[in-house]
């Protein structure tokens, strides 16, 4: 019977409407070849095992173009080419937010496993987003240096004081308040993907 792999996978994922699921199930029962294909696909659907990060340790940074209460985009280069290579500077544009002088600027970079806070790393580094240069439209500019990965995910969070880091806490707990504030939708956060040119 002519049932595509995509439809079988939908059936295996429980994603078909009941009538379609009934149809595929009847076809699988009647056709041994189809049943074999379904079994093969079911095995391929098994998720890889990976360590589960505790909820309190998880960063809930939205993917690029998904607003977490603020806007963030890569600024277009003013001159010549937009080509970007490792070690070169690129500019992020942070859309206007309320109370900019009270909001701490936090820069994150996504590693293989989690997000790491790039800035600030010491209490004396802290700076409010309001201290960044403002454009005519109220947005702020932030220059960062590209790393070596061909695709890089950067994020900006702008917590108020109650979600500021606890510098006396162990490293893994230092940003717990911010993580909680992001998860609760209380701290604006947004990410941007930067791609290096070959």
């Amino acid at each position, binding site marked *: 019977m002519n049932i595509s792999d995509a439809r079988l996978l939908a059936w295996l*994922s429980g994603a078909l*409407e009941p009538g379609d699921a009934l149809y595929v199930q*009847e076809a699988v029962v009647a056709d041994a070849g189809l049943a074999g294909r379904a079994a093969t696909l079911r095995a391929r659907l098994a998720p890889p095992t990976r360590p589960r990060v505790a909820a309190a340790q998880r960063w*809930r940074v939205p993917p690029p*173009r998904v607003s977490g209460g603020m806007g963030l985009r890569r600024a277009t280069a003013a001159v010549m080419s937009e080509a970007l290579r490792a070690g070169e500077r690129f500019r992020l544009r942070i859309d206007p937010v309320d109370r900019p002088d009270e909001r701490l600027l936090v820069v994150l970079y996504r590693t293989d496993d989690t997000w790491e806070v790039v800035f600030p790393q010491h209490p004396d580094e802290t700076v409010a987003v309001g201290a960044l240069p403002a454009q005519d439209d109220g947005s702020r500019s932030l220059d960062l240096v590209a790393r070596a990965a061909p695709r890089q995910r950067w994020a900006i969070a702008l917590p108020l004081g109650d979600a500021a880091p606890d510098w006396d806490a162990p490293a893994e707990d230092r940003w717990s308040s911010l993580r909680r504030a992001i998860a609760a939708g209380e701290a604006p956060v947004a990410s941007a993907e930067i791609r290096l040119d070959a």
Partner: protein
Amino acid sequence: MTQPHNGDTPPIESAMTWAQYIDLRENRRQQSLRWSAAPEPAAVPLGAWRLQADPALRDAAAHTLASASLSPGPAQLWRHLAAPGALPTPPDPAAQRPAWQHHDWLAQQGGALEDAPERRLAWALAALDHCGREVERRERWAWSAVQHTPSPHDEASAALWAGWLGGQPWSLRERWEALYLSPVVRTFRGVCEARRLPKPVVTRIVRDLEEGFFYRLVGGDGVPGWAELAVRVLETDAPVRALAAALDAAAWDRLSRCAVSRGSWQESCAAVWSTLPEAGSRARALTRAGQADPDWAEAWMDLHVVRRLVRTWETRPDADAWAIISQNRGRARGRLRALVAAGATGLADRLLSLPGLHARTTAAIRRYAWAWAWQEMALDFSFDIARSVTPPCHDVATLPAPFGAGLRPAVETWVLLVVLRGRLSHLRRWVASGSTGDRDSTWARLLSDSLPDTLSEAVPGKRARSYRRLRVDLAESLDDILAAQRPLLAAVTDLGAARGLRGRFTALVDGRWDGAVPLPRSGFPSFLKNAQATLDVAEEPT
């Protein structure tokens, strides 16, 4: 051998032996031949369809049938009307199978029955009976047969839904993700597997999904994801009736005005209320009927589907009937979803009173995630929350008029060219959002060089033209156009890549290619691949 059902509709046949199927088929054949000999509307045997219960809908269906210009081929006539004694017997006649499998087996045997005028109507009636039973079984009975088992998580699920409906979801995020993120991830993995995406890409997608899932449900400026999902939970109760019952007066009014003035629904409404002189009075009649009885919406949808089947059979008696049923019911249900989702905050009582809420939410979220994942696939998994999974239902008062019969060949030819150039997914994205999400030069040329000026509008003071009318038209007509082009696309794949392909292609489309669209001069080998790809993906959700 039958599943119990209410007394107003025929029983739903379940698995049956060959002999039982032949009994069913013979009853159908006899009553179809009888009625076609004296086609009295009140006696039309369309009992497999819900429309039978409403005299106005039944008469409209009977009139559509009796006035149709049908020309089924010998194979189609044989499939439905050959006498039982002329039929072969399958190798395992005692095997219990659903009716559609017996029907498909019979279709593969390749018999023929001579054409005769009295057989044409009987053929359509028998084919409709077969389709109607399958619609009842798959589109209604299968939904009601699902057991949404009570779960220890029902209470938590209700609290979570109360949070969404009350506009306070953030405090529930941990519990929501603990219950419902996992089925979404599994579903996305299924879509990635369907497209054989490399493992590192899947890892990236899953990470983005895990981080973006909740934001997607919270939503942006348009209808939020949670509202789309709430509607899908509600429809687990009955995919049409539950949503029809949830429409308020304003939503019914909007739906009715749209139905009486747009696309093929306009013709269906005119067929039912042929004595009402203008669209406004038909819209009011539709609203009255729909508000009086939520079950009527299924009967009304039945009439539309029956009419679309008969109209299609007039030119393509071998058309895939289930594709026509799916497209027309799918589009209508999509409109219903959009209308109900727009007022989702008022769904609290209906949603929270559903038994087995956790199981229903899990089932709905898998289906929602499947559609969402395919949408994301077309956009390289950008997770843009501004784009809803449910196509919006625009107010008809703000829409431009659809293209008339004079311009339809140009629309259809241009769509064919888009498909042959391998840009169908671009077209779908463009119709849905006004952008393809990339800067594809082939697509740009299709718009600038191949689209006739008559299908776009000049914008005063600007060089760029407006394509809104075309997008609105294609939002309604694209699936029908593609379905109608399937035989032609199949013929393109059969042309073969040997020398002289351009000549063979030109001969194939001669008489079907509208002159307003420039005939392609190059790229013919890729047409074969692109036509095949379109045929391959036709059954996947878009």
